[in-house]
């Protein structure tokens, strides 16, 4: 079997919930050896998040946890004990990367801060993910996904003017933060392997969200002009661009620009309208929108999402159906690409999971093992790799250290 692109990289995942574990999953699914370090008292909180089969909570059956922790081994370790700390430092000596998402100072307080880890492994990469970064006035602020997202300015324009602004879907921002951490960690791994550099990677969720794609803010910082107030920046349905009702739901259409509007006219069998003075320029189109709608809306309303999608895409008109997440599972494209993969898990059974975010032809994304049971690999890692005896392992268990 082909090896993964990240074969031979050893990662300790001390993360909880989404950002740290997702960062580690990106590395694990492309071949890194990831050991997940979990609190013996209950493990990663994502184990309690669900969804659960039949809505019955079970620490080994949480859908969020199962997805986020594929290809990882689980070792339980109470890092607040001296012995637990020593064992972690032994693991750090053999690791390339440590990933954690505790609040700033939390690792230092248990003697496992950046200086402590770098002392035992100077070439280590330590990736720390926090809401506001390791420095600055908000570093100790309490935060949840919604309170950080609100401060990016992305939320303000996301909603109707007479209503409260909305966050994006739950978890979406945290996934972006974890993915940012994965890229930065990958860069640091290259510096480690090529130049022998160890370093601290500090991910601020706020900066990761503000510094990626956001054209409105940079429009403001370049021009000094504030964009129109909320009421004027909202989605409104126009016939060539927007979200339109059709026979079995809604479609999203992006054909307002010159090139795409002309393609749209060809697709609906009215290429001659490009020369019609009512529709030949964007300004004219805006003035005669009702007249265009009289031609176009009947065409849309008598077709299904799939028909519109296929018939407009045949003319390279940008459009897409509004779907629910589950519809992608059976959509011809995802079926043809085998995107969803079946994974067998000892407690949760055989289930379909979202699969590879990208397909590497020579070093495939692969599931070598399902998400681990809590502490499943204690013996394998602590005895097999660190050389503890079975008696020592039992003693650690009886003291609540593992």
């Amino acid at each position: 079997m082909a090896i993964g692109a990240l074969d031979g990289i050893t990662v300790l995942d001390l993360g909880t919930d989404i950002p740290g574990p997702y960062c580690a999953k990106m590395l694990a699914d492309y071949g890194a050896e990831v050991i997940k370090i979990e609190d013996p008292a209950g493990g990663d909180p994502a184990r309690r998040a669900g969804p659960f089969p039949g809505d019955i909570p079970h620490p080994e059956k949480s859908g969020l946890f199962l997805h986020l922790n594929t290809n990882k081994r689980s070792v339980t370790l109470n890092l607040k004990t001296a012995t637990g700390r020593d064992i972690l430092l032994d693991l750090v000596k053999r690791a390339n990367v440590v990933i954690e998402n505790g609040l700033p100072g939390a690792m230092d307080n248990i003697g496992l801060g950046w200086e402590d880890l770098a002392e035992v492994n100077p070439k280590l990469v330590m990736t720390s993910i926090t809401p506001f970064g390791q420095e600055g006035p908000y570093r100790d602020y309490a935060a949840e996904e919604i309170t950080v997202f609100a401060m990016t300015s992305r939320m303000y324009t996301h909603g109707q003017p007479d209503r409260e602004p909305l966050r994006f879907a739950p978890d979406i921002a945290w996934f972006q933060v974890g993915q940012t951490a994965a890229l930065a960690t990958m860069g640091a791994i290259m510096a480690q392997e090529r130049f022998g550099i160890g370093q601290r990677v500090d991910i601020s969720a706020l900066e990761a969200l503000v510094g990626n794609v956001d054209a409105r803010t940079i429009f403001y910082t370049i021009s000094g002009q504030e964009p129109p107030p909320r009421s004027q920046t909202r989605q409104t349905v126009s016939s060539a661009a927007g979200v339109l009702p059709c026979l079995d739901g809604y479609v999203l259409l992006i054909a307002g620009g010159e090139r795409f509007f002309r393609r749209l006219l060809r697709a609906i069998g009215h290429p001659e309208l490009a020369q019609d003075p009512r529709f030949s320029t964007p300004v004219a189109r805006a003035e005669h929108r009702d007249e265009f709608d009289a031609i176009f809306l009947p065409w849309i309303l008598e077709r299904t999402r799939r028909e519109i999608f296929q018939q407009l895409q045949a003319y390279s008109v940008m459009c897409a159906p509004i779907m629910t997440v589950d519809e992608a599972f059976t959509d011809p494209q995802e079926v043809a690409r085998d995107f969803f993969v079946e994974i067998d898990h000892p407690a949760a059974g055989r289930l379909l999971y979202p699969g590879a975010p990208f397909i590497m032809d020579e070093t495939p994304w692969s599931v070598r093992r399902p998400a681990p049971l809590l502490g499943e690999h204690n013996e394998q890692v602590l005895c097999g790799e660190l050389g503890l005896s079975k008696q020592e392992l039992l003693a650690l268990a009886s003291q609540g250290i593992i």
Partner: protein
Amino acid sequence: MAPLPLEGYRIIDMTEVWAGPMGTSFLGDLGAEVLRIESYPRASSSRPTEMRPLPPGSGAAVGRFAGDPNAPRPWDRSSSYHLANRNKKGFALNLATERGKELFYRLVSKSDAFVIGYSAGTATKLGIDYPVLREHRPDLIMVSMPGWGERGPYQDYVTLGSGLDAYAGHYYLRGYPDLDPTRTPQIFHSDATGALAMSFAIVAALRHRNRTGQGQFIDMSQVEVLLTHMPRPAMEWVMNNRVVPPVGNVDPTMAPHGAYPSSEEDSWVTIAVRTDDQWRALAGVIGEAWAQDERFASVPGRLRHRQEIDAHLGEWTRQQTNRAVTDTLEAAGVAAGPVYSITGPPSDPHLEAVGYYREVPHSLIGPYRRPGPVWHMSETPVQFRIPTNLLGEHNRDVFCGILGLSEEEYLELERQDITGDAYKPGADLDPEDRASS
């Protein structure tokens, strides 16, 4: 000073709008030499040739200009282009000509990776698909990142990020629970996640090549990247055959959790309470009788009485600014944050204190402030070394410097419209429409 992680690697960027260009900017941030090839003499969608009104509701702001709409070189002024392009050199090349193709192959032979962001047929049509390019560079890494991926029945389909958001189910999930989907704004979130996934893929492939000498082709579907980011609704369907409806700002495990009105017009503050300790802290700050209600003391009680709590809390927040609510609650250890408008992040005291926004030069529209990098690395910090490239700005660096053409040979390319540094009117229309307009 330590070398940057990707120092010494050359990556050719042939992508448009946001996801691709942002991703290659991240590679530039990591130290790679990124060469951006730009469509010529036809303008790409990243380089609008005139100021035109956007359809209402489009959040894209592609083609929005900073400053005077009648200023020269509009294609160098679009703020969305500036957003997604830094730390790269740009050159223009007509790939539809034999000479253009030959020069491109020579450049590929001197490069480590190539990213293409067009629909799947394009590379083959242009004669630059992976089997062809491999003949010029056997260990080449190539990423193709069409919206729906390189392979499969939708390989030729076109869209912007908002269409991918719709198909992946995110558009549906993030709407108001009580309003129909036409009331949900379009967003371009898959551009952010596509940028990150593509650049991650390239670094991982470079790492593999370092160890084995093996290059490879990578097929990235931007939709599939986004589909890995919503596991809870996906697993709810897989496990329980249930379609999760939009939930707005509600969280199944926290109450209160949401956006609450503040004293100024159209101004909001977010508050999220996870634990009973945080609730007691919040109740202490509020100091009103309702907050002491025993029914609200535990998580299950608060979840059950969510609406009642929200109504009371909204009355309390309405009497103060969102900044005051945030400061008071954070001092008590309760998570809160103002819903910033566009002007918020650039003037936020924390981002100011950590020096997040950076002033960058630009010969036409600069200097201006742009958001900083998306990570801090202690030993290999990101520098904004190269300002946003003008069209054709680094033509000579590429054709003469890297490919070794003489000045006379270079000028011949310009004469034959194989390269250039300015577009003619109508350069962004399809050929059949250019004739008729």
